[in-house]
């Protein structure tokens, strides 16, 4: 990057299935105020506001304009980005770029979605007109296919998905900003949940949440002035994949591996398990998390299920993955990918509270995922 960029403020709204007590602007405002308080600045210091979400999920056309009362964008620069499921991370990356460009010193970026007001399943069915609309399967069908393929290719069993779900819930129960905090006792509790599309059970798939996330991104000069704990953006990568049908998972090299290889190479990461202290990944299904272990080279090919079995990705262990509870616990889609970055930043600062990982976190990797199998990666560091 042309100029150094840091995350200096992190804000999250309450995340829940329904937020009838607030409208979208008010919900966003919870996250914005939290981020400003965290950065210890007021809104007048912010020069630009990015407001990012998926259009059809909350029924807003030009939502950045419509929600300006809640975002704080009044009389400021800004725009809206929308790249599908990756939108929260694209919104963060756009803020990094705006600050790195030297044109802005402080940018506020917001990911939000009040899914109760739209129809995300119906919207997703329109992801590939002519190919997918007829099947009316949305994301669940695509991830069910990926799960079947994973079982077939690797020998993983349903119980491994149960282990991922159990870990997510244990972590979510330590995160006051997680939506689903179920207190699951064992993988039998997961097994009891109803089938959506086999082998995906209700608990194997991400919920529909209402929530917002906000980040305040600052130039080096400003960051050093306003905070003792800036989290530096070391690098980021965006890799799209074009498909006529939406296919996730699978055996061949996809956007995830390509993105990981690129960012590892540029940053001298030869052994990600050793070189990266904490991961916040975008796992819409419990099976996807096992895929991502492999795709980000945290374990050998086809051995992701052994990784969850071994427990190394637990919060106290060597390779903590999704200490926040991840997407399986909280999924306000426009906010989801940004929450991965926000949570990683809190881990680096040591401010994650109850779900702070045991090991000292100096470097994190956050991923975003969207249709059609697009990947974003953000590498954060305590010092550059």
């Amino acid at each position, binding site marked *: 990057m042309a100029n150094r960029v840091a995350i200096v403020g992190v804000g999250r709204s309450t995340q829940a299935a329904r937020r009838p007590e607030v409208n979208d602007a008010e919900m966003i405002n919870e996250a914005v105020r939290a981020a400003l308080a965290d950065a210890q600045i007021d809104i007048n210091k912010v020069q630009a506001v990015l407001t990012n979400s998926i*259009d059809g999920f909350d029924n807003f056309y030009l939502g950045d304009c419509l929600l300006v009362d809640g975002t704080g964008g009044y009389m*400021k620069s800004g*725009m809206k980005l929308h790249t599908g499921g990756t939108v929260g991370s694209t919104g963060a990356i756009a803020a*990094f770029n705006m600050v790195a460009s030297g044109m802005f010193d402080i940018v506020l970026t917001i990911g939000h979605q009040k899914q109760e007001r739209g129809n995300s399943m119906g919207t997703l069915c329109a992801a590939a007109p002519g190919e997918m609309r007829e099947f009316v399967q949305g994301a669940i069908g695509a991830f069910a296919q990926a799960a079947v393929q994973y079982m077939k290719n690797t020998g993983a069993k349903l119980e491994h998905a149960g282990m991922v779900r159990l870990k997510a819930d244990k972590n979510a129960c330590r995160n006051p900003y997680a939506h689903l905090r179920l207190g699951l006792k064992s993988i039998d509790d997961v097994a009891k949940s109803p089938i959506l599309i086999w082998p995906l059970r209700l608990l194997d798939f991400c919920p529909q949440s209402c929530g917002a996330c906000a980040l305040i991104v600052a130039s080096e000069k400003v960051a050093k002035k306003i905070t003792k704990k800036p989290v530096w953006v070391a690098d980021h990568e965006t890799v799209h994949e074009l498909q006529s049908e939406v296919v996730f998972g699978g055996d061949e090299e996809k956007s995830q591996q390509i993105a990981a290889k690129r960012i590892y190479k540029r940053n001298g990461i030869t052994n990600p398990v050793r070189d990266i202290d904490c991961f916040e990944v975008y796992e819409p299904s419990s099976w996807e998390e096992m895929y991502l272990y492999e795709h980000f080279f945290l374990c050998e090919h086809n051995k992701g299920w052994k990784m969850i079995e071994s427990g190394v990705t637990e919060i106290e262990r060597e390779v903590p993955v999704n200490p926040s509870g991840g997407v399986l616990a909280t999924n306000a889609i426009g906010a989801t990918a940004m929450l991965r970055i926000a949570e990683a930043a809190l881990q680096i600062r040591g401010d994650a509270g109850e779900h702070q990982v045991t090991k000292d976190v100096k470097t994190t990797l956050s991923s975003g995922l*969207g249709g059609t199998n697009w990947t974003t990666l953000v590498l954060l560091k305590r010092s550059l």
Partner: protein
Amino acid sequence: MSERIGIVAVAQTRYHPNRAEVKEGEMAYEAIKQVLQETGLKYVNDGTGIDAAVSCSQDYWDGRTISSLNVASFLGTHFRSEEKVASDGINAVFYAMMHILSGEHDTVIVTTHCKESMTSPSLVQNHAFEPIFMRVLGLDFLSAAALQATRYMSKHKITPEQCAKVVVKNRGNAKNNPYAQAPMSLTVKDVLNSKMLADPIHDLDAKPVSDGACVMIMAREGKAKKFCKKPIWITGVSNCYEAHYLGDRDLAECKALTKAAKRAYKMAGITNPLKEIDVAEISEKFSYEELLWMEGLGFCERGGAGKVIDSGITKMGGKLPVNPSGGCLSGNPTEVAGMTRVVEAVLQLRNQAGARQVPDARVALAHGTSGVCGQLQTVMILSNS
């Protein structure tokens, strides 16, 4: 800015009321292939070609989620980077500029497309209003514009004839633009006699439904000079949000535009816009907007735009020709409109604007709006030296 960002190639489709025979991507590719051919650049990862894409479109117009998928395969984005700006196209150009300045990539293709004919514009626009208090009123951009026009015209004594003069000028200018959808030889009377859509806006006071796309390739200074003999430089740019609720604003004013213009002028070192800008392309989706936006841009004092249009200085051959292309009133789709203004400004500065060329244009202004009654205003200053 640490270094200059140049526009090395531009292209646009002919704007048309209904392109039912092509899909969005095919339509955009009509323009995309022109810039690829002109520059000879390819979608490669070795630094010799186009590194990444920034697209601009809207799910609501395209009738699908992630509307950039409609054009992604024409932008070489398979296993590469693309970001979609869901705003007016001029903001995609603004973002692409910052994307390059950030150091992420050197050369970026930017495109925007929209087929307004595929859906009911009024229905789409209704979704741009706050859902609890405003959407249920049935507001769309036309009815909101009628409120703004009424307020603006009554506060500043702007006459329907002065608004109609904008239409006569722009539709007339469009006769010189082979890409314009609806060039027409009109009189003020013709405009005032056209069907009343929403008082005081007549049919000819509003832009027609339009389909089309435009594209450009942008690069950092060193590369821009390699890729093209006459790169056009973005010397100033800014944008600014107004309030959303119409009742929170004085619709006769355009505070956000004033602020965006001030910031863009400061960056470009412009102190007297009327004198220092040679040609302006302004997003006027309704005739009164060209007048109101001229005030916001500081071309005249508040309420003075009626006199400006009467004086003729914004005509071709005038002191500051406004919309030599024919503007949005001659047919540009929403979202594409602002980027079309940039494309036209580039053609002017490259002396490639054909019959609509403003002689010796060196500094151009491009303006775009997004949202209800120009809620998000973007101003860009371009220069050929």
